[in-house]
């Protein structure tokens, strides 16, 4: 079932089809997910807060993208909507070629289960399940066992993340870094269209943090995994292939890979300009 979402080269045939349907698809754009004219307001009309204001952007397939911005810039809201966790006030969003705006709760739930991987800042793991149980959770929620290919993929992940000796441990028996590695294994296990990481290093010491970032960068570089990471940490963002900057609910800049000090300087410049 994942075959239809695998990267597809843009051939003349698909170009022709897009002309026929009068709409170019996310896949044809080389994107894993995208949003168009996205706005999101919170609260009632009189005191409404505009968290996102007409944002159009895509997460490139096979790349590690960082989304940066100061607190209140709308970066978390943007990612929540892209990952199917929240609904926009207006605008459209796609994961792969599926438009997710307008989907019902159950459809969104199944979409997240099968096509999105999540790594949160903290409280990533279900406390009553051991590490392996947490890694297998997306399959179990789907009521199926992993196929032989998926099983091999999971074994490979466990191996490369060094989780072998920890599989029977419950989350409270694991260090913060180990917990994040379990979360990474879980997020990558289903080979989702998009892995969504929300400040994945926010609760870690700098060494474990660097480890987690290298693992994410490797997943994208070596296995073509599309990853979107929300962060306010320039060091974390420096591991990404591409950096999107948000401020006041708008996309203000987009940059290729940068060094941490360059990112830092740019962020400071944004603050001063505001």
């Amino acid at each position, binding site marked *: 079932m994942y075959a239809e979402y695998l990267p597809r080269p843009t051939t003349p045939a698909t170009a022709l089809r897009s002309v026929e349907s009068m709409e170019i698809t996310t896949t044809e754009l080389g994107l894993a997910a995208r949003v168009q004219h996205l706005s999101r307001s919170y609260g009632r009309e009189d005191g409404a807060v505009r968290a996102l204001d007409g944002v159009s952007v895509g997460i490139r397939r096979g790349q590690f993208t960082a989304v940066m911005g100061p607190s209140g810039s709308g970066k*978390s809201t943007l990612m*929540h909507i892209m*990952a199917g*966790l*929240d609904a926009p006030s207006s605008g459209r969003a796609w994961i792969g070629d599926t438009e997710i705006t307008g989907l019902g*709760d*159950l459809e969104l*739930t*199944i979409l*997240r*289960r*099968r096509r999105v991987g*999540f790594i*949160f*800042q*903290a*409280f*990533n*793991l*279900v*406390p*009553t*399940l051991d590490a392996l*149980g947490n890694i297998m*959770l*997306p399959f*179990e*929620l*789907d*009521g199926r066992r992993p196929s032989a290919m998926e099983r091999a993929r999971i074994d490979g992940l466990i191996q490369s993340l060094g989780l072998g000796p920890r599989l029977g441990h*419950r*989350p*409270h028996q694991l260090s913060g870094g180990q917990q994040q590695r379990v979360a990474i294994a*879980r997020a990558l296990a289903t080979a989702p269209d998009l892995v969504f990481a*929300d400040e994945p290093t926010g*609760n870690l010491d700098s060494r474990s943090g660097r480890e987690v970032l290298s693992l994410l960068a490797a997943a994208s570089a070596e296995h073509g995994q599309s990853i979107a990471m929300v962060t306010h940490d320039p060091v974390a963002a420096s591991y990404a292939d591409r950096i999107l900057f948000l401020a006041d609910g708008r996309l203000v800049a987009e940059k290729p890979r940068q060094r941490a000090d360059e990112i830092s300087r740019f962020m400071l410049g944004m603050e001063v300009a505001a």
Partner: protein
Amino acid sequence: MSAVLERPRAAASTAQAGSRRLAWLRERGMGATILVAAISSAFGVILIAATGYITSIARADPYLGESGSIAFVLGILTVVFVGLAMYIASIVTANTFATVIAGRTRQIALLRLIGASARSQRQRVAAQGLVVGVLGALAGLLGGIALAAAGIWAIGRMLGLDGISHTLLDPAFALPAIVVALTTWAAAWSGSRAVLRVTPLQALAGSVPATHGDTGNRRVRGGGAIVLLAAGAALLGLGVLVGLFSPLGVLIAFVGGVLSFTGIALGAVIFIPPVLRLIGRLFGGSVTARLAAQHALRHPARSSRMAIGVVMGVALVTMFAVALESMKGVLAAELGSELLAEFTSVIDAVSAIMMGLVGVSAVIAAVGMVNLLTIGVVQRRRELGLLRALGLSNRQVRAMVMLEAAHIAIAALVAGLALGIVYGWAGAQSAFGSISTNPLGEVMPTVLWPAVPLWPMVAVVCATLLLTLVATVVPTRLATRVAPVEALAAD
């Protein structure tokens, strides 16, 4: 939990300062506590009134006369049934206050941060327990008196007993109300222990909730419970043996039964988790079933205390039903068919009344089940949010909460039925074992088979499952409202 946030803006005026001080009464759980206190207090009042009324009728009867034995037997039954109701009510209230505190953690932490001592915070919670206890007890007292008066009037009219002189206001009515108020206070104190574990740090954003329950890090204090159980079981066995030769065996068995049952109740944390584990295994390996089964064991003390309330009710009903049914077997051999039919109808009536009386405790236990499931949902908002984000559908969330409830209810049913059959049989055997049923007239002790009456048991099972189902309505609604984004929210 949200009462503080939802306080009306107009409350700034001094006229409303008083209502603001009582805003905590609107918190989730307080209403349930008042309800539970009112039910048990009213139940006590009604049973005392009924005992008094039946004794008055007996006194007026020329054949029964001044015999005090009826009043004595009714008195014991009143103590047993009201005691059971109050015991379950206090478990429920303690659990409820634990729920309330789970919802207030942030607020308590904030007060601790600015200098309040944990002890003063706990005393405040206990004082609130006393207030709701008194409110509930008074409501129950008044409601109970009204219901008793109405019932006595109706029965008097129905049976044409106009000549019975009976006071509708007995000073003894105050007794259950006072006991209920005090036990509610004590239960609030015991349930508020969690206040001591709240640290000022928890007021700061981003604190990670404790992710594992009280498994393992608490040593079980169960020595006394096991000794009681062993001694009680030995006496029960002795009573059965003595019963083969003399009906007095039932007295020994009675003491044994009370001791062993107390042991089981006190040692619930030891005896219930294995049953929970067993039942959890029966639910199968689906992820919702596994999460539900493991959740009930995450707070074994809380789940066990809740389950034991249901166990006691089920065991008591089953015990009476089995004892009476077994007795029928003995009587069938002793009495003629005409007398037997008469006895059977009396026995069935007694059995039905017992069930009705235990039913009150069952309703209180159902309120407790609501609270138990609610606290599970409230304390797991982030976990539920995480599961929702990862792809647990709302339907699966609902199934999970229902399975949690079913888990505890079925474990309690199985344990209660098993205990009830053993106690019922032991009671009947020790009381009637010496009655010879040998038709040849040769005196021989009788060994009874435990006779389990089908319909009363079906009624018990159905009533328990129905109450459980009703109890899941509120918690499932609460759980399905948890948004996936809550997994990311900082507390």
